[in-house]
Each structure stands twice: as C-alpha cells, then as structure tokens.
C-alpha cells in the first residue's frame, strides 16, 4: 500500500479573491472576478475580458531584493506559498532542508517580465537586458524561488502541460512524498496577462470575444463561444499522512487518485483520452464511480470540447449521474493555476458540504449533465474529482477524499 498523501495547507490567489477566505466567500456567493483587461491596453484585440487577481501589492509581501527579479506570476506564487505554509502551521526553518521540496506547474513562464526584457533587447540592445532575465521568465522559476525563500533543498521540479499541468504537478509531488520526502509545496500560479501572453493565448482560437462578463464564458451552455483567460492559482502543502498526523496537523483531505492521458492524433478515429484519465484516477484511488460525490469540470466552453467532456463524464458516471460544477466560470481559465485552484475548491467544498455553483450558465440539456447552477448546493461530500485538459491533448484527473473524521 502506498503512503497516503494529504493536503495540510492552502494559499489562494484568484481573480475573485486574494487569500483563501476571500476566494471561498466569493465562490459560494457566485461572485466572479471577470472584467475588462486592465493590466495592459487590450482594446485593439478581439478578446478584451480577463480574470485579474485584485488588490495584490507585491511590496506588501516581498522584500525589495525580490522585486527586480520576479515576474507577477512569481510574486503571486511566493505569496500563495507563504500563506499555504502558514495555513499548514509549518515553519520551514525548523525542518531539515532536504526533507522539503517544491513542484509547480507553469504554462508560459514569466511572460510580462520576459516581454519587457525582449523589448529592451530589440529596441536598446543586449546591454539593456536585465541579468535576471536569465531565470525570471523560466517555467521553473516559481519552484526555484519558493525553494530558495524557504530553504527547501529536497527534490524540486516543474511540469508543463497547459491547464492539465497543475494536476500533474500535484501528482508528481505525491510521488516524491511516497519516495521519502515528507513535505512538498506544490500547485501553480500562472499570470501572463500582457500583450505577448495575450497573443499566445489568442492563437489557440479559443478565447471568448464577448464584451460582457456575464456572457463571456459559458461552458456546457448552447451559447458557449470560448473561454476567458485569467491569472492566479493556488499553492498547497502536501505531506506524508503519517507525518502530518504525528505533528497534529489539520488535514483538508487526501490526494487519493490520479490519472493522465494524451489524446490520440486528430482524425485517427480513436476517442479522446479524458474518459481513460478519469478511470485511471478512480482506480488509483480505489473508488467506484458511485462513490464520487462531485466533479469539478475542465469546462472549456468550446462546443466540441464541452461535448467531449460531458460524454466522458456520462460514460463513467451515467447520464446526469453525478453533480458537476465549474467554479472557474467566476475566475476564467487560469492555465496551470486552474487545477490546483480547483483542488483547493474541492477540499473546501468537502469541508463545508457545499458544492459551489457554475455561474451565468444555462446547461445545454443535450449534454445530460447534472450541472450545479444558481447557487451552492448542499450535499453529502466525501470525494471529489477534478478534471483538467491542456491545449495539445493533455488530460488529467485527480480524486480527493475527505480527511477521516
């Protein structure tokens, strides 16, 4: 039997709330954080709405030494990791450095920082490029900066699989704990709301061009026409369940199962891989479908992708066989940050026995989903399944289970 791995700390930076408490209150109230892009002038682009993290003043959280060397995504990740560790009641200074590691996911790296320095390179010359460009825009920089800040010298790394990567990172953290590192800080924060990031995301052809937040991101709705991108995510403290119990930690829940697949080549006639990812995650968790109490959907808001997800869910759980929700309708799609934020949401839902709603959506009856809309739904929740798909055919599924009472 593999060592159970539990979540003991949570730090959230989301478009509808900075900090876990603000996020959770907004999420239960159905209060979204999608609005016109303010971080740069997006008026000339087809898509002009985003989920931006409100009220984050980097100077309030980070020393002056860190500011010149960090992109926004790293600043948010550092703050969220601090909150997660404080929430877990862990003081890294009291632990052996090699007993702690960091695994994050990243979809784009530090694009805002990178764009500024590339502009310096091509407009002023190489001597005007910050020396910190050498790492500040790398995929791995959030893992590096978190590990340096807290003196975590155990195994570290980064996973890159667009939206699916956020779950893949937590799965890798679980593997490392099972190999003997007692504590891993994991999760993801992406924040590429700058012209470069915007163009890169626009190239997917999947961004909503709607002008009104209430109409812009409508997964599983007959009016679905793309998604709204957002920034932020969540950081989690993961621990060996036995070690967490011995120190008397408060446990949010267990990372019970994980599965990942890659879609077949387009046009080959084989089915997409999401169903298989779900089945793998359930088998890994030792769960049968009837034991899953809620599914947090990937929610692409692309008609074909919504249908594929609804079919995968129905194939495993039966038509309208399990409550499904997409709280990311309040935040937009956060790239790598989405999976860890949904994990946090799922764990908070298990704690409160409330399924947060999918907002603004009128579920397309043809999809045969029991979509939770209108408001939070009270339910007996012991297990939740989080789904995430990344552009390019990545499918990941992760099951979480409530802590034993």
């Amino acid at each position, binding site marked *: 039997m593999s060592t159970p791995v539990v979540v003991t700390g949570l730090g959230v930076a989301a478009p509808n709330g900075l900090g876990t408490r603000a996020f959770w209150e907004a999420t239960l109230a159905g209060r979204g954080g999608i609005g016109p892009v303010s971080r740069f002038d997006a008026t000339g682009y087809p898509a002009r709405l985003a989920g931006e993290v409100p009220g984050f003043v980097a100077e309030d959280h980070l020393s*002056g030494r860190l500011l*010149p060397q960090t992109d926004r995504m790293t600043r948010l990740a550092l703050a969220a990791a601090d909150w997660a560790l404080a929430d877990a009641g862990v003081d890294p200074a009291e632990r052996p450095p090699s007993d702690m590691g960091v695994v994050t996911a990243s979809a784009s790296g530090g694009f805002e920082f990178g764009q500024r320095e590339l502009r310096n390179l091509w407009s002023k010359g190489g001597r005007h490029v910050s020396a910190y460009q050498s790492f500040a825009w790398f995929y791995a920089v959030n893992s590096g900066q978190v590990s340096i800040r807290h003196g975590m010298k155990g195994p570290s790394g980064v996973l890159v699989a667009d939206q699916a990567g956020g779950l893949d990172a937590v799965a890798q953290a679980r593997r490392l704990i099972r190999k003997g590192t007692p504590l891993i800080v994991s999760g993801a924060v992406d924040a590429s709301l700058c012209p470069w990031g915007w163009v890169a995301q626009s190239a997917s052809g999947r961004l909503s061009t709607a002008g009104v937040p209430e109409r812009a991101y409508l997964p599983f709705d007959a009016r679905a026409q793309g998604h709204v991108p957002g920034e932020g995510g969540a950081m989690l403290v993961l621990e060996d369940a036995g070690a967490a119990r011995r120190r008397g930690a408060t446990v949010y829940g267990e990372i019970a199962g994980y599965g990942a697949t890659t879609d077949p080549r387009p046009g080959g006639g084989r089915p997409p891989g999401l169903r298989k990812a779900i089945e793998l995650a359930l088998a890994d968790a030792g769960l049968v479908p009837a034991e899953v109490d809620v599914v947090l959907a990937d929610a692409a808001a692309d008609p074909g992708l919504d249908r594929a997800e609804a079919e995968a869910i129905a194939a495993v759980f039966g038509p309208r066989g399990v409550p499904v929700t997409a709280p990311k309708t309040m935040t937009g799609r956060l790239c790598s940050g989405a999976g860890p934020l949904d994990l946090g949401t799922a764990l908070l839902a298990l704690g409160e026995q409330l399924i947060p709603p999918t907002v603004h959506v009128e579920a397309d009856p043809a999809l045969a989903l029991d979509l939770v809309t209108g408001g939070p739904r009270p339910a007996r929740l012991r297990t939740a399944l989080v789904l995430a798909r990344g552009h390019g055919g990545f499918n990941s599924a992760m099951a979480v289970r409530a802590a034993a009472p």
Partner: protein
Amino acid sequence: MNATEFTLSDLKRILLESAGADGAGLDGDILDSRFEELGYESLALLETGSRIEREYGIVLDDSVLGEADTPRALLRAVNSRLAPAA
C-alpha cells in the same frame, strides 16, 4: 557621460535600481562590507555592473565584478576606468 567620479551614493542608487534592498537597505557604513554580506549575489552584481557600464559609458571585464567584493573595491575599479592614465 562625462562623469568624473563614481561615488558611494552613485553606487547605492544603482544597486537599488538593479537589485533592490532588504529592510535595512543600504544605510550606514557599507564601504568595506562584502557584497555577499549585504545580500547581493553574483547576478545582482552582474546587473549592477551592466547599469554602471551603460550610465558611465565604460566597460567592466567580468573579472572586475568577480574580484571587487566590496563597495570600496568596486568604486576604485570604476573610477580607474573613468580617469584612465594619460
């Protein structure tokens, strides 16, 4: 630039612009403190050297930044290039 002298206050300003400072900042007598003790690693010094080069129109060899491990040593190295021997 025709600056004739690179002073400690010039260095402090450029250090702050390049790499920031922690709480205590750069107050007090730091002339003979090692950069490492002040919290500046090699990358911070690389960025600082790059800005000094741009602002003062000089070239600092990599070895200069490696060897000048205190503000006093760096001031001396920069000033020797601002006023080359005739």
